[in-house]
């Protein structure tokens, strides 16, 4: 019984992990059609912000919840102004530019902060579930994954800003004709996507090794989740994260992490063969 509970919890945590990794990218890639190859480095920047500021004496939660999203969000806006704004509609060019950006960020962070920084420890410690022990922090990850999705949904669905953003992404010329300054909308949307990525990087900082190259290991999972999910931010991210997280963790429990990793890739492969536009290209079509 407690084993089932632990397995279920672990699956939900894996889903939350994918949701956090992918939400920011879903906005930038899913909505804006910008392939941000530096997504992993945006996560790394969030992680570095937390580690550096916590070591400098800032409260760990302030660094995770405020500093990481703000720093990465502002960085995202700068990047959008300097590079991305010239590349809307040019998917391959954006890939090349952001790939270069990712190398620049890895090199830059190594130069400024060094490749070895003291990590931060995971808050809260362990919790007993029958004969097993799990980190309480798992619930924090799950909570924030839910919060991020709900927040994005509320903004897109109920606010005027969300409506404008959706309108701009659907038909920028028409939106412009209606008096919307689409440049600002693009900039803000990119900034928000970056900020969410920063928050995710910050939340992951206490549970992984924070080094300049950490993004390379995360960018793959993020893209797989977003592409499998398809164009809609909420339904896409949630459905693909649920599917991929459950399958990969289920297989990991049954066999081992090698097959768990492989199962995630095979699932994504099969899904994209059947649903080339992603899950939300066929199912939940009109959802957000």
């Amino acid at each position, binding site marked *: 019984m407690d*084993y089932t509970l*632990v*397995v279920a919890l*672990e699956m939900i*945590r894996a889903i939350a992990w994918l949701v956090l990794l992918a939400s920011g990218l879903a906005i930038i890639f899913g909505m804006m059609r910008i392939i941000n190859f530096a997504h992993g480095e945006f996560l790394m920047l969030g992680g570095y912000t937390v580690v550096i500021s916590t070591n400098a004496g800032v409260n760990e939660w302030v660094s995770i919840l405020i500093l990481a999203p703000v720093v990465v969000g502002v960085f995202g806006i700068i990047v959008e102004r*300097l*590079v*991305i*704004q*010239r590349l*809307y*509609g*040019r998917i391959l*060019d954006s890939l*090349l*530019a952001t790939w*270069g*950006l990712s*190398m*620049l960020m890895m*090199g830059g962070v*190594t130069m400024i902060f060094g*490749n*070895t*920084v*003291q*990590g931060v*420890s*995971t808050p*809260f*410690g*362990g919790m007993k579930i029958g*004969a*097993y*022990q*799990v*980190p309480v*922090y*798992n619930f924090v990850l799950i909570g924030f994954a839910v919060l991020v999705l709900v927040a994005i949904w509320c903004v897109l669905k109920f606010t005027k800003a969300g409506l404008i953003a959706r309108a701009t*992404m659907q*038909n*920028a010329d028409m939106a412009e004709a209606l008096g919307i300054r689409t440049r600002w909308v693009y900039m803000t949307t990119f900034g928000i996507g970056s900020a969410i990525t920063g928050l995710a990087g910050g939340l992951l900082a*206490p*549970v*992984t*090794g*924070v*080094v300049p190259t*950490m993004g*390379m*290991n*995360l960018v*793959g999972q993020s893209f797989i989740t977003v592409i499998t999910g398809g164009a809609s931010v909420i339904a896409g991210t949630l459905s693909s994260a649920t599917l991929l997280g459950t399958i990969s*963790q289920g297989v*990991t*429990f049954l066999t*081992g*992490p*090698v097959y*768990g990793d492989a199962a995630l890739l095979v699932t994504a492969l099969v899904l994209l063969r059947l649903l080339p536009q992603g899950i939300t290209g066929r199912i939940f079509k009109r959802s957000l």
Partner: protein
Amino acid sequence: MTKLSRRNFLYTTGAAAAATLASPLVARAGTDTIKVGGLHDLSGALDSTGVPMNQVFQLAIKEINDAGGLLGKQVEAVIYDPQSNMSLYSQYATQLALKDKVDVVMGGITSASRETIRPIFHRYNTFYFYNTQYEGGVCDRNEITLGTTPAQTVKRVIPYAMNLYGKKVYTVAADYNYGHITAAWVKRYVEENGGEVIATEFFPLDVAQFGSTISKIQGAKPDFVLSAMVGTSHLGFYRQWAAAGMKSQIPIVSTVYGAGGTEQVILTHEESDGIIASFGYFEAIDNPTNKAFLEKVAQEYPDKKWVMSEISEVTYEGMKIWADAVKEAGSTKRDALLEVLTSGKTYDMPAGKVKIDPKTQHAVRDVYIATCKDGAFAINETFPDSQPEDTQMVCDLIKDPKSNTQYEISL
């Protein structure tokens, strides 16, 4: 997203902003120097290990030059950065051998990089020192191997931990040749000592979530966990282990933790305290050579954040031992040097006594077992004169000096 042209359509692509990496640093000067090559990853995934190695490599050269150089000449370093990239490794190795015509090369970190460059140096008769702890089995007269092998470390740390904790072992290892070979050695030594490996799990290097494994370990209730986890993603294992509150319940013994000299810095003390490891060098070694060495390093690199580990200290050894042999032989020719190196001379190094086994050209050295405490390793036990028995089982360069291979040691 619109397909119509935007106002800024004519702007040139921002891709120009994508910076390409700088070309390698090559020091070059007149002909009246002895050139030595350094091939360590100074950027890319392995830079946290490569940079310290390169720093002590340069420190050793500086010391040699300050003491008057070799054969009346100054020693000059030719340094390339292979950027953790195997094709650059082979390119720079060829350059070092043919264009720079160096007398010796120190370098290579992973076994993959070594097996990329070793045949190149062998072909061009460029003397090569490999200074990393690795899985054993290299048999090549052109290579001196100074790092420890499993028969020197794993063989000792397993019975040590079994005495301390018990006989049921759970192995977690990285999913590539190092992890698989080490896991096989672990199984062998555990069984030789009357214990049992209850499970072995392998992790691809990009796996960063360990929750399910940690639950499985809790279910299996081993006496200790043996970790051969490699790389920064795998550091997450130690963090998530501590976060689940397992630190106080099941101890961790590792064959690689601390190998790069950065793990102790990246993890917090609560996460790393109590981990047991075995290497040929720890900062805590108590001898005057080591004290002087660490002082010099601190003076030369006051901003360093890394901890001196076997891989870096042995790189220093490599340079010093080579220089000593050059002095004694009065030549930089490989065969003359090999004669001196394999003559059984004992070198007094920061790590203790080091000798070169003529059969395998691997180091016979002191091996230590230590426990991590407050982020630093404290030594529990010393094993002097540890032989590279694994490689000795398969390799005899006296009988077969033409050998040019890495044997797989069948277990």
